[in-house]
């Protein structure tokens, strides 16, 4: 059975993929369906959902369209989640490969740096970084990546330690290949599968961290974020709970979708490797 068909036969994976597809569709269609500034005032303040069909999910305290905010917020969540996870995976894989392949002093130094980052709670690290540098989308991405690259680095190093003893690495040395070429051409690609298996967890965590930062007011102030929407709705939690519940549900479904789809991909590729 092909991996795609096996993926499609797993209900969790299909659910995850559908949620993820919906999220991507929201993010891509945001400026088509809701052109203009989502932070502009669109109607009366605190309009409840399903009252006015030109504003289906109602308006917030300032009269902004909640549905438009939701769509534009999907962009931020997805962009930050993917960018932060990609940065963390790349940095982690490179650091882990260098440490594992070089060994000795290089390994010692790189792993102590990794330890130092790992001992600080990653959210605290992100919080401190953003409050020092100032909130913007790029800074938030770096802040999240700063706390998450250590996991991939450790996994990559462990994998590289076993791969570097294989005959084909000795063969590459006999051929006269440069050590860096061996590390990144021969060793790294074969060490990647277990590192990539972590990506769904990392993307999900990155989306949550971004929401948490925005909730605390440390997100990019020029962008709509789900975390920021929840924080905004908190002030009127008793009179207009939907303002917090709607983006909250969106957040839960997104994290769930990323996680389920990621697990589905890992499962199907793992089975394929087991068979071959």
């Amino acid at each position, binding site marked *: 059975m092909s991996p795609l068909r096996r993926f499609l036969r797993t209900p969790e994976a299909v659910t995850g993929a559908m949620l993820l597809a919906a999220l991507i569709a929201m993010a891509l269609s945001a400026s088509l369906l809701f052109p203009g500034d989502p932070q502009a005032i669109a109607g009366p303040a605190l309009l409840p959902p399903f009252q006015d069909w030109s504003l289906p999910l109602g308006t917030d305290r300032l009269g902004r369209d909640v549905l438009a905010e939701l769509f534009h917020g999907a962009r931020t969540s997805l962009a930050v989640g993917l960018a932060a996870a990609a940065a963390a995976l790349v940095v982690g894989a490179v650091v882990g490969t260098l440490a594992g392949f070089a060994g000795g002093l290089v390994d010692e130094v790189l792993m102590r740096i990794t330890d130092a980052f790992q001992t600080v709670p990653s959210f605290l690290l992100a919080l401190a970084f953003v409050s020092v540098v100032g909130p913007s989308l790029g800074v938030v991405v770096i802040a999240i990546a700063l706390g998450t690259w250590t996991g991939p680095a450790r996994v990559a190093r462990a994998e590289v330690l076993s791969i570097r003893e294989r005959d084909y690495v*000795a*063969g*590459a040395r*006999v*051929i*006269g*290949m*440069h050590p860096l070429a061996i590390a990144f051409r021969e060793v790294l*690609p074969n060490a990647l599968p277990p590192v990539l298996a972590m990506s769904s967890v990392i993307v999900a965590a990155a989306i949550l961290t971004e929401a948490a930062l925005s909730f605390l007011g440390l997100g990019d102030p020029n962008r709509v974020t789900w975390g920021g929407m929840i924080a905004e709705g908190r002030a009127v939690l008793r009179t207009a709970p939907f303002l917090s519940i709607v983006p909250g549900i969106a957040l839960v479904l997104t994290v769930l979708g990323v996680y389920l789809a990621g697990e589905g991909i890992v499962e199907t590729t793992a089975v394929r490797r087991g068979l*071959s």
Partner: protein
Amino acid sequence: MSLLAVSNLTKCYRRGDKTIAAVDDVSFHIDPGETLALAGPSGSGKSTIARLVLRLIEPDDGRIDFEGSDFLALSGAALRARRARLQMVFQDPLAAFNPRATVARVLDDPLRVHGIASRAERPRRIAALLERVGLIADLAPRAIHEISGGQRQRVAIARAIATKPSLIVLDEAASALDVSVRGEILKLLLDLQRQEKIAYLFISHDLGVIRSVAHRVILLDAGRIAENGDAQTVIDAPQSAIGKALVAAAPRLNRTLMRLASAGLD
């Protein structure tokens, strides 16, 4: 002058507070175009010597002269450049290649690394190398795991000869193959030796094979040279205790098969 001269080579491993000498004061030489076999029981230091000669591991003591210069004095780019002249074929041809590689990439690497052929010229060189080892050029785009064990070992030999080496270390290069394929691979190695004057350091536990392909043999026991001399003389009438034990342990069936195989090789 000899092609490779190894003198007083020593390599120790520390296990706990005990020091075990894997290779203990070993000296030998190989002449151009000659096959020197290393034989001995498991753990006698055969593979360690191979890895020391290739500078995959560093010796604790001793000297290695290759093509008239001190091989142990080389490092960095100079060492990588010299590696073109000293190649290796591994026992397990599947483990010896990157699992993601194709035949073409495996053969492209040495040509690229040593600047032997330009990018445009390399596909033609790769095809020529494949034909040189008795494979068809159409095999180039195939993945390493898709071809048979015998084909894989031929690709390994093609890779080893790509840089025109003067010495190839064959670490049990034919041992993992079945008997009929083994005979073909040995025949290919002998042909290459005759035509290109390549010397072999032939590591094997199979005295029958050694008797038919090697000029001289060194019998190792616990990292030391136990016996040393003309391959046929040593194997037909071993003098050392380990030599007698090895010959006695070689199954009669195997020797008969090898006599058949060596008859085919002549």
